[in-house]
């Protein structure tokens, strides 16, 4: 049973493109076409605007919170080809770093698992993925995966920091491998692995028939198995699984939705997948013990949407 807990008046002047809760679920950041990012305190069911971050010169597409060990740090990317990293110090937000080395709109940002340090992947419409890493002394290094996706990269997500093939490696502990999954306008999902400081394409997953809109690597479940959820404009959500023993990924279509699916997002615990689609609904999915994905929750239609009458009044 899903019910509306509260509505948040974001006061954005245009469409909101992303809303992200921080690590502890106490702060909510929203970004909008109106070029601004707003940070709300959402503790105790209240929402108070903490800060209004302006600095982007175009619509802001996506946000990502860093692990709290790096302080209150937020990354944003937008149409203005910039990636901005914001940091809160003593209650005031300021730009920590601005990266403007993309040739087109930057569509996606994602912070790496904290084990890897302050590390950020950005996917852009110029087809590249850039990996920004903080050296710790205020300067940033960047690496680029060129031609990651022709026409453009729409989404990036990091693999959890787990030792690969943990079950079968009894010898020396291999260093934890950094992996990224990305989805693009070439309808492909690609998995990248860092090797000797270079990012190489490890896997190309074909399954979608239209732009891949979002990718999400499930958090570690303490097993070598990897799970990735991807969604696309072809109205499908695909769950890709790898058993950790081979290089093959098996796919399972969650469901064919009636409209474009924009977002997929995993819960921190419990491997629950939230799917948000073009029909403005959110549904929650969980794998049953039989290995089937079942919808365990759907946004209550009456409560989840504004009725048509209200909308025209606005």
């Amino acid at each position, binding site marked *: 049973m*899903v*019910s*509306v*807990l509260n*509505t*948040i008046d974001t006061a*954005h*002047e*245009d*469409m*909101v*493109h*992303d*809303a992200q*809760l921080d*690590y*502890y*679920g106490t702060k909510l950041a*929203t970004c*909008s*076409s*109106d070029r601004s990012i707003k940070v709300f305190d959402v503790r105790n069911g209240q929402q108070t605007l903490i800060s209004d971050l302006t600095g982007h*010169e*175009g*619509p802001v597409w996506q946000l990502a919170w860093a692990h709290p060990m790096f302080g209150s740090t937020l990354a944003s990317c937008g149409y203005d*080809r910039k990636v901005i990293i914001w940091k809160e110090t003593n209650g005031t937000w300021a730009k920590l770093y601005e990266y403007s080395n993309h040739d087109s*709109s930057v569509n996606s940002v994602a912070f790496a698992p904290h084990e890897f340090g302050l590390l950020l992947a950005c996917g852009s419409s110029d087809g590249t993925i850039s990996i920004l890493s903080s050296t710790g002394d205020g300067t940033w290094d960047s690496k680029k995966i060129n031609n990651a996706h022709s026409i453009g990269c729409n989404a990036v997500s990091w693999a959890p920091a787990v030792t690969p093939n*943990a*079950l079968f*490696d009894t010898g020396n*502990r291999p260093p934890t491998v950094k992996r990224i999954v990305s989805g693009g306008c070439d309808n492909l999902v690609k998995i990248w692995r860092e090797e000797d400081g270079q990012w190489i394409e490890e896997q190309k997953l074909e399954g979608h028939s239209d732009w891949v809109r*979002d990718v999400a690597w499930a*958090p*570690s*479940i*303490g*097993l070598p*198995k990897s799970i990735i959820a991807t969604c696309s404009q072809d109205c499908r959500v695909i769950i890709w699984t790898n058993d950790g023993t081979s290089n093959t990924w098996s796919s399972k279509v969650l469901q064919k939705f009636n*409209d*474009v699916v*924009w*977002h997929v997002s995993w*819960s921190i*615990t*419990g*491997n*629950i997948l*939230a*799917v*948000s689609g*073009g029909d403005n609904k*959110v549904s*929650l999915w969980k*794998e049953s*013990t039989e290995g089937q994905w079942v919808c*365990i929750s759907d*946004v209550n239609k009456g409560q*989840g949407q*504004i009725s048509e009458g209200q*909308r025209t009044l606005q």
Partner: protein
Amino acid sequence: MQQFVHDKVNYTKPEHHMSFNCEGPANALALNKDATMCVVAGRTVFRIVGIEDHGFVDRINLRVGKINLNYCAADVAWNHHDENILASAATNGSVVIWNLNKPNRSKQECVLTDHKRTVNRVIFHKADASILLSGSQDGTMKLFDIRKHAVSLTFTGKMSESVRDIQFCPHIGSGYFMFAAAYDNGNIQLWDMRRQDRCIKQFPAHTGPAFSLDWHPEEKDWLATAGRDKMIKVWDTTQNPERMIKSVQTIASVARVKWRPQRKLHLASASLLLDHHVNVWALGRPYIPFATFDGHKDVVSSIVWLDTHIFFTCGKDGYLVQHSFKDAKRPADSVIPSGVDMDLFGHVSHAFGERTGFKKASQAGRSFLFFSKAPDKGDLFTESRSDMYVHTTKHNLTLPFEGFIESAKRYKLSNSSFDALCDHNADVARRLNRPKVSSCWSVLHVLFCNKHLSHSITSRTNSVAPNDKQDNNKGTGKSQLNSTQDMNKVNVKDSTSDDSDGESSELDNKLLVDSGLLYQQADFFFGDGETDGLDYDNPTSSFDMLTKVDDDLLDYKLPYEAIQVRHELKTVSPEDLEAGHQTLVGEQKHNNMTDNQISPSEPEDENIISIPSKLDIPRISQPQIVVDMLKTFAQQGDIQSTVSMLIVLGDKIRQYIDEEVQEAWFQSYIEILGYYELWTVSAEIIKLCHIGQVSSLNQQSTTIHTYCSQCSRQILGKVGWLCEKCKSVTNSCSICHLPVRHMYIWCQGCCHGGHIDHIKDWFAVNNECPTGCGHMCQYT
């Protein structure tokens, strides 16, 4: 599926993307009256190109004869009355008039060298085609009469700022004599041709240079300006002071701005650098371009509209391009209109936008069919608002968010017997409405119970059975209570008072508290939190107490008895058991585990229970099953159950699971506890973990840095009480000036302190620091 405002029009003739290489960076572009030809001018380019249906055709190259700086054009204009007259602005300050009718190869008619510096713009007057106006870097604008080939008027403002752009007001009625000029300092001036000494109006429009301006073709008072500050602004010039109607922020400095014909709120812009696209903006939604056009490899220097749907551009890449709206990219179509995220507590925040103009668009489409005058579709591309909701998934039993925190806090993982821990945790899980987890704890108990086996197991299973049945009956409130009581009764009867049922067994609780204390003391002495060492230590010191209680509490010694169990475990061979029964148990257990439903309702369950009562129960029933169960929990995301059971099982199961897997489990559980800010639980888990990698986490960041209270420098020396810098003892008492050997109390504000007694005495009377440093210390 999706509908957007596309402003689509049925094209009457085939229009397509055309491009032509002018072989040199182009600065300006002008169309002739009939739009059959255009002139492209640049530093090394000056040619006339024919516009045909199938493409551009090279017509006349004007860059012939003796080439001098007069050919380096910054701007070009085509006279709309006389097809053959062109004017160009040269970078050396000359204004050149060209006559295509000239029989010579060189079509230069005359060169007017009145400006001292580069001329940025030349324009013909819309009505009086003999009037040519030029604006120059030297800060002046000159009005030429092209018939006389001479300057008739010079407009000089008070400022000596460079003129970047000029434009005659297109409204012949009121604005016949009016023109606007954009200056390097960001100001805009409105001039009357009849008055050359000063402008009619002036207003600051941009920070930094204003590069371009354009009068609205229909709204006669509207002026669009653009500048290096990346802004496009639309002004109502009749207002005093000028009112900014709308502004658009772009991602780069704006070099050119042009209104789109017949679309009241649309304008096209080109960037000075960075962005090689032409963006068409709808003022109703100033954040995202209505349409973008590519085709240039470098920045676009000039934009000329042919009609509503076609325009020409030339760029620094040397290309002349015809753009058609058919080819436009619509950035707003590909934006993601929703955002979703889930927090720790199962709250889902969801923002979603209205589909841009969805309904209105369909209505407008209909009216478009019936009325001759098309509605202004640009108005439909308006700001899109998003609604944002937070949904709660509370009271949803299928979700694991509920109960995680409570479980984490209430689970007992150590300091008691295995049986007691299992029972306690099963009870916790049951109370939190997690029957599956509860059953698993009970089953663990049954499987690994190692004390007076045959007797205890039978009783134990009996105690589990009614309990589970009750649960199955969806026992709420009363029935749960009953079942607990039931359980208690059974337990008491069967002389197992260690069910740790909170209220019912105070004795047990007391014991736990006591032992907890002892435990901590032991911890202090032994350091490093080595549980094994403690367990040995513990019973010896608390043995009296234990024996006083009840002999069943001898269970408590289990932690080290468990070690023996492991040996037995190895010796117990399956052959000892009846093969049939064993497989039966195994299969059932296995099924139950994998289904994660120890569904007590199934009649087979009775079998499980009945078997041990008849059988000599195997002490270890296939650890693999338990391993599978733990893995299943992990796979389902319930890492809490996995880790808790792993800790409680300890040596019983540890050896069957790869250590790295265990470590991964611990790590992820600790991480999740971090999410919920359950630091105490997290610390306990770390302490109880046998894996070095994990248990060493508690030893990280345990250094305390100290600073000298005299010179405020960090004490880096070998001893903590002597500052190497100022050679003073850091811990001397501020009152008696002797070194403090025991408890040192100090103010965190001024770093002064001393013997606790002295300080107490001092602050009983005073508020200020005893050293006289003036700090109002707040000892309380």
